[in-house]
C-alpha cells in the first residue's frame, strides 16, 4: 500500500510538469501582449515596454521562463502580476476559499441528490419515477448551464424574492445555496445517470439473487448489497469532479457575482495575466491529481478484490 502510494506520487511528477508546461505554453505562445495591454488604447512607449519586459524576464527564451517559473513554484512563489506587480499567490489565496466553499456545497448536492435520484431510478427501472429522473437529467445536460443559472436567478431572486439575486456575502451559506445548486446541477445529473445504470446493471447480479434467497429485507438488499457495488464507478466521477467544480465556476460565479477562482480567471484572461492563469491551473492540477489518487485508494476500500502492490 505504502509502495503503491509512493509510486503513484512519483508518477504524478511528470504529469504535473507536463500539465504546467502545457498551460504555460498555451498562455505564452498564443498571441496577445500583456505588457502592451497596460497602456490600454494609448500607444505604448517602446522603451518602457522593453524595460518592463526585461525586468519581468519576459525577454528570455520561453524555456528559460518556464524553468524560472518552476523554480519559483518549488519555493512557493507563483510569480507577480504584470499590472500592479502583486504576488499571484495573494490573488489565488483570496479567491480560492470562496470557490472551495461553493464547490464543496455543489459537490454535496451531486453526492446526496445525485445518488439518491440514481438509486431510485435504477431500482424502479422503467417505471414513471425512472422516466421522470431520466428526463430531468437529460434536460439538465442539454440546456446550457448559464441559461439554467439565469433562469433560476430571475425566478427565485427577482420574481419570488427568495434569494438575493447576487451573492453579497460569500461566507453566507444561504446566499451560496442557489449558485451551488446551479454549479452542481450538471454533475448531479451525471451522477444520477451513472448510479442509475450501475444499479440497474447490478440489480440482476447473482449475488443479489442470493441475497433475496437469504430472505433479507428489500431495504437491506439495496443498502448493503446493491449500493456498495454500484457506487464504484460513481466514486471515480465524484473524485475527479472536485477539481472541475472549482474550475467550472466561471459561469456560476459570473452570474451570481461570486468573487472566486472563476471570476479571477476570467479577469486574468481579459487582462492577459499569464502568471495568474498558470497559477490557477497549477493549483487545480494538484487538486485533480490528489483527488484521483484518493479515488484509487478508496477503490480498494470499496472493492476488496483490488489490491495495490
Amino acid at each position, binding site marked *: 500500500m505504502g509502495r503503491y502510494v509512493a509510486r503513484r506520487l512519483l508518477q504524478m511528477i511528470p504529469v504535473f510538469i507536463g500539465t504546467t508546461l502545457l498551460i504555460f505554453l498555451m498562455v505564452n505562445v498564443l498571441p496577445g501582449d500583456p505588457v502592451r495591454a497596460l497602456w490600454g488604447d494609448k500607444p505604448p512607449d517602446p522603451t518602457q515596454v522593453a524595460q518592463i519586459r526585461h525586468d519581468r524576464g519576459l525577454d528570455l527564451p520561453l524555456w528559460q521562463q518556464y524553468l524560472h517559473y518552476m523554480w519559483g513554484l518549488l519555493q512557493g512563489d507563483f510569480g507577480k502580476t504584470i499590472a500592479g506587480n502583486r504576488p499571484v499567490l495573494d490573488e489565488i489565496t483570496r479567491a480560492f476559499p470562496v470557490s472551495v466553499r461553493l464547490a464543496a456545497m455543489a459537490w454535496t448536492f451531486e453526492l446526496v441528490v445525485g445518488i439518491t435520484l440514481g438509486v431510485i431510478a435504477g431500482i424502479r427501472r422503467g417505471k414513471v419515477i425512472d422516466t421522470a429522473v431520466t428526463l430531468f437529467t437529460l434536460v439538465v445536460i442539454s440546456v446550457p448551464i448559464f441559461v439554467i443559472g439565469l433562469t433560476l436567478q430571475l425566478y427565485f431572486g427577482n420574481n419570488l424574492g427568495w434569494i438575493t439575486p447576487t451573492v453579497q456575502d460569500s461566507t453566507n451559506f444561504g446566499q451560496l445555496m442557489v449558485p451551488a445548486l446551479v454549479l452542481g446541477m450538471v454533475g448531479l445529473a451525471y451522477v444520477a445517470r451513472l448510479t442509475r445504470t450501475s444499479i440497474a446493471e447490478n440489480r440482476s447480479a*447473482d449475488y443479489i439473487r*442470493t441475497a433475496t434467497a437469504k*430472505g433479507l429485507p428489500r431495504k437491506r438488499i439495496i443498502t448493503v448489497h446493491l449500493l456498495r457495488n454500484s457506487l464504484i464507478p460513481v466514486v471515480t466521477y465524484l473524485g475527479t469532479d472536485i477539481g472541475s467544480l472549482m474550475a467550472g465556476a466561471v459561469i456560476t460565479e459570473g452570474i451570481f457575482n461570486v468573487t472566486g477562482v472563476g471570476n479571477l480567471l476570467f479577469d486574468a484572461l481579459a487582462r492577459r495575466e499569464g502568471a495568474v492563469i498558470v497559477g490557477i491551473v497549477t493549483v487545480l492540477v494538484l487538486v485533480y491529481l490528489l483527488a484521483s489518487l484518493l479515488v484509487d485508494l478508496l477503490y480498494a476500500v470499496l472493492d*476488496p478484490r483490488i489490491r495495490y502492490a
Partner: protein
Amino acid sequence: MTITDMPANVPGPRSGEDNGGKLLDVRDLHVEFHTRDGVAKAVNGVNYSVDAGETLAVLGESGSGKSVTAQAIMGILDMPPGKIPQGEIIFRGQDMLKMSSEERRKIRGNKIAMIFQDALSALNPVLSVGYQLGEMFRVHEGLSKKEAKAKAVELMDRVRIPAAKERVSDYPHQFSGGMRQRIMIAMALALEPDLIIADEPTTALDVTVQAQVMELLAELQREYNMGLILITHDLGVVADVADKIAVMYAGRIVETAPVHELYKRPAHPYTKGLLDSIPRLDQKGQGLFAIKGLPPNLLKIPSGCAFNPRCPMAQDECRSEIPALHQVTERDGAELAGRASACHFWKETIHG
C-alpha cells in the same frame, strides 16, 4: 384447473390432508416469461413433492425448466418478465403463492434455503464471507454483529473449512472454488432449514472436488433430516445421493421414479437417451450415443409430446396428443410405486 379456483385462505386441515403431510408439494405449476419475442413457457404444469429427509433429484438439460421451478419455489423469480399463471406451491400445508411477500421473505433462507451453482458470482464480492454468513443470524434471529460472527465461524467449521477463525474475514475471491461452495452450503444451512434447494451445486467445480462437496451436502442433510431438491444435469451425481428422480423436458416432468429403478429400466425415451449418452467403460470403442437434435425453443414448443422431433419412437399420435403422466406398471399390471412416465409408448419403452 379447479385447484386455482380455491379461496385465497386455504383452511389448514384440508390442505393438510391433501398433501399427506408432505414437506413441499408443487402442484400443476406453470411459469412463463414475457419477452420481446413472445411468451416463453418455461414450466408447464409441474407436480412434485419432497418429504423431510428425502432427496429429490430434478434432472434435465438447460432450458428444461428445472431451475425456473426452483426459483419459483424460492420466490426469487424476476417478475416481470416472469409470471406464474397457475399452480400451487404448498409448503407445510400452506400455499406460498398466496402468501404476502413479507411472509415469503421470512421463509426464505430460514425454512427453505438455496445453494447456487457458481459460488463466485453468487457471493457478494465486496463483503467478507463472515459478514455474509452472519447476516442470516442478524436478519432472521436478530443477533448482534459479534454473536453473528461467532456463529459464522462455527458454520465454517461445520462445513470443514480449515482455519475458520482466521478466514472468517476473508473475501469470496480469496477462497478456492470448492471452499467457496462450502461457504454457500454453510449459508444455506445456517438456520437449519426444512428444505434445501441445490441448483447444480457441483457443476462449476473440479471433478475431484465435486464428490467431496456432494458428500458433505448429503451428510449434513441426513444429520438435520432436511428435504433436499437437487437440480442437476449430471446423472452421475444423482445416483449416489437421490431417493427419487424427476426428469424434466420442455417445462414438464416426463418421468418420475425411485433412483435405482430409473437407471435399470427407464420408461421414457428421453430418459433412455440420457442414460445411453453416459460414457461407459465396458463399452469402450463403441462410440458415444447422443440424443439427436436440440432442446426445443420454449417460444414454440412442438405440438403433442415436446420430445417428438427428437424421439426415435415417435408416431403420429405423439405429434398431436400431449401424453399424460401415466402410472407405470409391471407387465402384469402391478403398479410400480412412485413411477410414472409421460409417454404414449411407456410400455414399449420399459418392457421393450
